[in-house]
């Protein structure tokens, strides 16, 4: 993947905002790919966790905006506990979700969930799913 990095598509504010939300510095990442190797969802993602971290390091907000990676994240913390640089990557993924959710956008629409799912699914699935994917 070739990426052009220009003053127009990079944003220092974006890196600062990620730090404010997650408390994690994406600049610590050394691109070893351990997160991707351990992530159960990396094959399903547009960009694997290592690439997400790489784009975030350059403040490439727009390139990350339409990617599904952080919506496929399960918050399972497999990456977090194995990162040799000690980055809590699950918190970075959460920050990327929050940047969207805090603009009053939902990733899933509770009103569209079929009645039989609401009847059958465990409460923790509902509460956790709505916490992670609705504003």
């Amino acid at each position: 993947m070739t990426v052009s990095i220009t003053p127009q598509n990079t944003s220092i504010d974006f890196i600062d905002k990620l730090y404010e939300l997650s408390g994690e510095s994406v600049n610590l990442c050394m691109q070893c790919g351990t997160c991707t190797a351990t992530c159960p969802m990396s094959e399903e993602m547009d960009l694997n966790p290592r690439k997400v971290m790489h784009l975030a390091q350059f403040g490439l907000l727009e390139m990350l905006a339409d990617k599904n990676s952080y919506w496929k994240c399960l918050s399972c913390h497999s990456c977090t506990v194995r990162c040799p640089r000690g980055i809590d990557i699950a918190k970075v993924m959460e920050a990327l979700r929050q940047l969207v959710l805090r603009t009053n956008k939902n990733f899933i629409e509770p009103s569209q969930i079929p009645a039989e799912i609401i009847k059958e699914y465990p409460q923790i699935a509902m509460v956790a799913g709505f916490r992670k994917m609705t504003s």
Partner: protein
Amino acid sequence: MKISYYPGCTLKTKAKNLETSAIASMEALGVEVEELDRWNCCGAVYSLSDDDLIHQVAPVRNLIRAKEQGADKLVTICSMCYNTLARANLVMKENEEKRDTINSFMDDEIDYFGEVEVVHLLTYLKEQIGWDKIREKVKNPLKDFKLAPYYGCTLQRPNTVGIEPLGSFEIMTELLESLGANVLDFSASDTCCGSYQVIGNQDLSQTASAKILGTACASGIEALATSCPLCEFNLGKQQGELLKQELIPRSVPTFYFTQLLALALGVDDDACKFELNDSSTVEYLKSKNYP
């Protein structure tokens, strides 16, 4: 002995089998279970945003209830409740700035400083009851059961609240062995089942669950033991669909560890409520000559 117990929402609704089998087992082991008065939902997931303190209020309020009632330990069974309560407790214990903000926001409550210890039932069984006592009390050993522990994510990660170190599955292994079962190595014991993605992105949770169950089949594991109602839903109740789509070669009955404990201790069958699990659990027990 008496324990202060936090049930959480799912154990009162879709996972009644987890609660009733746990309480009956604890009674059989001589432990009185006292449910926390006026508890509320813990929020199911710990808030991962640093500036988001409002979502810590729900779990902390439960810890305040426990402190008010004079409990030094609060025992939970649901893995997700355990993780959320234990992580919120760490914030109150270790982060002075956040603790002060949360305490002053809840000005109708007593101040809380992380005094209550959040304990998972598995840890309680190991440390306060012990495997020897459990072995003595077993009436129906689970002989010929080839089982594996399934920890999922929230019992072990992050390591600040994990019930044991990453990659170690000793507690549940030792429990199942005390009950007389054969416990097999299971490399997918801490691989995520797909979790909350089952809401809205069901294909993702099915892919994740099929991989785990496929690994269990390839390892000769007959059935799994878990402590999380969401893992039980994704791995157990969704199995019929996975079989129909031929994503897994055979069923892998998924039990709560408390049901296997209750079964081995010979407590009243009504407490296990296997009818609330996937139907393969009942068939599996029949194949082992259990009623």
